[in-house]
């Protein structure tokens, strides 16, 4: 069987399905669901079949559109190429859109104009799949634009609510500025090297950083930074994830920002091959660390379920960016593992938020409560997702976060740079804050007392629970059988990211890379996938235990005092000593009440953050442009 046609068939199939569903399915519900499920399932199966040659036999699949093969090592046509790294992202993408399609059937049934919805949905799926398959940099840009276009339209899909339109507009403006930077970078590359093929660019640019190349690199870094929502560019992400229908929020966090991460990896490791410069590593790791910290602290201050998850999504992408910036095989595998786990657990959490919205009609943390009795199955799924994202064993988030700590700390030991030690501590602290934030959500939504208007809440239907169960099972699977995943998925994918000569040779013919004197990116650390050491684990647990005891001992004296000074204590039962002596019958501790002491102590920081996230599109664009200028300056200083 000639499987080299499969990538292009899958991508075109999804686009074709998008048009067919509009023509035949806009009136009839059954036809629409059949078309959507048929095209998503077939394309997912075709792509998953490619795991056999790519991971099983170590092949690199290359395909030239219209059979325009390279002439004399000069690429003419548009090429698709799938190596281990592409295949890894392809698996994430097909998993996400297939589960989201299943979930959409029931979740979206009350909306109107579902033909449009599925057209945009399939366009989004096809564009992200095309983005991670393509070997042509302009094709990559076109796919990025289709992706942004479909994502913006889907954000505004429920346009009865003004804030959804607002979120879409902000996403469109910031996204277009980012795409513009990407296109300018591509133009500057074409100007010098007269090719758009990524493999050929890699063979030409390698070790040839002219000032124009530096500008191109910084512009494309900004472009993919905007697409993966790293911190100065993260502002539209929170709005868009919150406003989009939940099945789409899951797609955003599952594959749209992973597409940005993929672009970043290809850019830094292959096209420009600059990641082995230590200054570039530090720049990328700084972006990752700042992203994870600001994301999680912003999440602590949120009152809306989906907006909170959106900020966590930004924070988790920070982990991935930190890990891929290390330029070690361990860093790469742990980053990819975390990207995969993030797709699973964040998708699961968004689906739970969607189930809550479907059942109760709100995602406001202060209006929810006590749903665990009404929706026990959703609660279990949510707890699995929350444990995974907080990094509790034996769930997958623990395995990948532990590997990231190890990778960053190993980097600190190898380079002797104190900065990486600091980043390790930041990563651990961010994980703790993630746990704190999810305790708040669990308490506010699922436990505690249910408000009276939620008395008739029912569990969501089976077709919505099915994707949730699949993702929960995969979360548990990833945490228990991480060695298996490491051996068959992460190590081949991670090595493929470093093995750029193989990529170039597969695309342009044997020994192209040698004649262009391209070498593979050298890995600082040889061992790819070391595992958590039980003794270190024990030490961490004892440390945490001591910390908890210290907090308890030190806190016991001041507990009464704080509560007396709280002026609300007398009026409202919920501020008096937890539940005893309450005056009112209904005394639910709402989401914003937990951790108010922490927030009070950090009020200056939160004040600054509130004023930065002002909601004004001019401020956001100004922030984007200023940070872009800074990135250009930093990269220029590094290379020249």
């Amino acid at each position, binding site marked *: 069987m000639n499987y080299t046609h499969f990538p292009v068939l899958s991508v075109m199939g999804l686009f074709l399905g998008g048009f067919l569903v509009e023509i035949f399915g806009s009136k009839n519900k059954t036809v629409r669901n059949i078309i959507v499920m048929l095209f998503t399932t077939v394309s997912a199966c075709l792509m998953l079949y490619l795991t056999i040659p790519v991971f099983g036999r170590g092949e690199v699949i290359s395909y030239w559109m219209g059979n325009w093969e390279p002439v004399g090592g000069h690429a003419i046509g548009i090429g698709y190429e799938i190596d281990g790294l592409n295949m890894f992202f392809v698996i994430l993408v097909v998993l996400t859109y297939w589960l989201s399609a299943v979930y959409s059937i029931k979740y979206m049934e009350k909306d109107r104009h579902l033909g449009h919805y599925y057209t945009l949905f399939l366009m989004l799926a096809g564009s992200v799949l095309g983005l991670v398959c393509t070997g042509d940099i302009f094709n990559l840009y076109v796919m990025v634009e289709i992706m942004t276009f479909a994502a913006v339209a889907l954000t505004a899909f429920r346009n009865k609510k003004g804030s959804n339109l607002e979120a879409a507009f902000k996403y469109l*403006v910031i996204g277009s500025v980012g795409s513009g930077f990407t*296109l300018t970078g591509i133009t500057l590359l074409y100007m010098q090297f007269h090719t758009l093929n990524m493999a050929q660019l890699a063979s030409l640019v390698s070790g040839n950083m002219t000032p124009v190349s530096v500008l191109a690199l910084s512009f494309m870094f900004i472009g993919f930074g905007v697409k993966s929502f790293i911190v100065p560019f993260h502002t539209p992400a929170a709005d868009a994830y919150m406003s989009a229908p939940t099945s789409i929020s899951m797609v955003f966090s599952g594959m749209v920002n992973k597409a940005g991460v993929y672009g970043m990896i290809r850019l830094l490791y292959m096209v420009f091959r600059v990641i082995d410069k230590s200054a570039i590593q530090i720049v990328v790791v700084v972006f990752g660390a700042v992203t994870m910290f600001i994301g999680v602290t912003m999440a602590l201050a949120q009152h809306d379920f989906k907006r909170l998850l959106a900020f966590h999504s930004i924070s988790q992408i920070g982990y991935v960016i930190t890990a891929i910036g290390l330029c070690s095989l361990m860093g790469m595998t742990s980053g990819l593992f975390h990207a995969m786990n993030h797709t699973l657990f964040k998708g699961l959490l968004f689906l739970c938020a969607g189930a809550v919205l479907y059942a109760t009609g709100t995602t406001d943390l202060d209006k929810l409560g006590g749903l665990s009795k009404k929706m026990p199955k959703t609660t279990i799924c949510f707890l699995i997702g929350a444990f995974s994202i907080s990094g509790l064993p034996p769930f997958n988030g623990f395995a990948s976060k532990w590997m990231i700590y190890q990778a960053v700390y190993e980097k600190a030991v190898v380079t002797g740079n104190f900065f990486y030690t600091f980043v390790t501590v930041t990563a651990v602290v961010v994980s703790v804050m993630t746990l704190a934030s999810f305790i708040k959500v669990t308490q506010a939504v699922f436990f505690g007392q249910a408000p009276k208007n939620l008395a008739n809440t029912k569990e969501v239907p089976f077709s919505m629970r099915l994707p949730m169960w699949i993702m929960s099972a995969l979360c548990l699977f990833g945490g228990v059988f991480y060695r298996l995943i490491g051996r068959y998925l992460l190590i081949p994918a991670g090595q493929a990211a470093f093995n750029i000569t193989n990529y170039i040779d597969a695309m342009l013919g044997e020994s192209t890379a040698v004649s262009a004197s391209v070498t593979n990116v050298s890995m600082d650390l040889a061992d790819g996938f070391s595992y958590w050491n039980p003794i270190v684990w024990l030490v961490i647990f004892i440390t945490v235990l001591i910390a908890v005891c210290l907090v308890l001992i030190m806190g016991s004296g001041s507990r009464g005092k704080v509560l007396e000074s709280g002026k609300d204590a007398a009026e409202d039962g919920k501020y008096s000593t937890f539940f005893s002596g309450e005056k009112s019958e209904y005394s639910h501790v709402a989401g914003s009440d937990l951790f108010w002491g922490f927030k009070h102590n950090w009020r200056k920081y939160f004040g600054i953050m509130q004023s930065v996230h002002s909601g004004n599109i*001019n401020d956001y664009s100004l922030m984007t442009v200023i940070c872009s200028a800074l990135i250009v300056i930093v990269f220029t200083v590094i290379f020249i």
Partner: protein
Amino acid sequence: MIFNYITSVILIVLGLYTVCAKRNLIKIVLGLGITDYGINLLIVSIGYNNGGTAPIYAADLFNIGGTAAFVDPIPQALTLTSIVIGACVDAMALSLVIMINKRYKSIDANEIRRLKG
């Protein structure tokens, strides 16, 4: 030739300035458009050869940087794609502005900020 590059940079910067400084949403969309035009001008300019003819056949198309007598056709194809994408984005942005105006009764960026913090 250098004039083209300078103009394109001026257009891009002007567009970004409009996006950052103007509070009217329609002006922000126009700013995005101006940025696009600047980039399009840049792309067309890089394919231009002084005194070059139309690329009818591709005999010395790959004779780069020297005496190629043809204008490079690829940037023109790229520009067409870019123009189409830009037009779609502008159209969608404007339709969003219409809808925002219906819901908020305003197109002032300072008032379109229900999502913040």
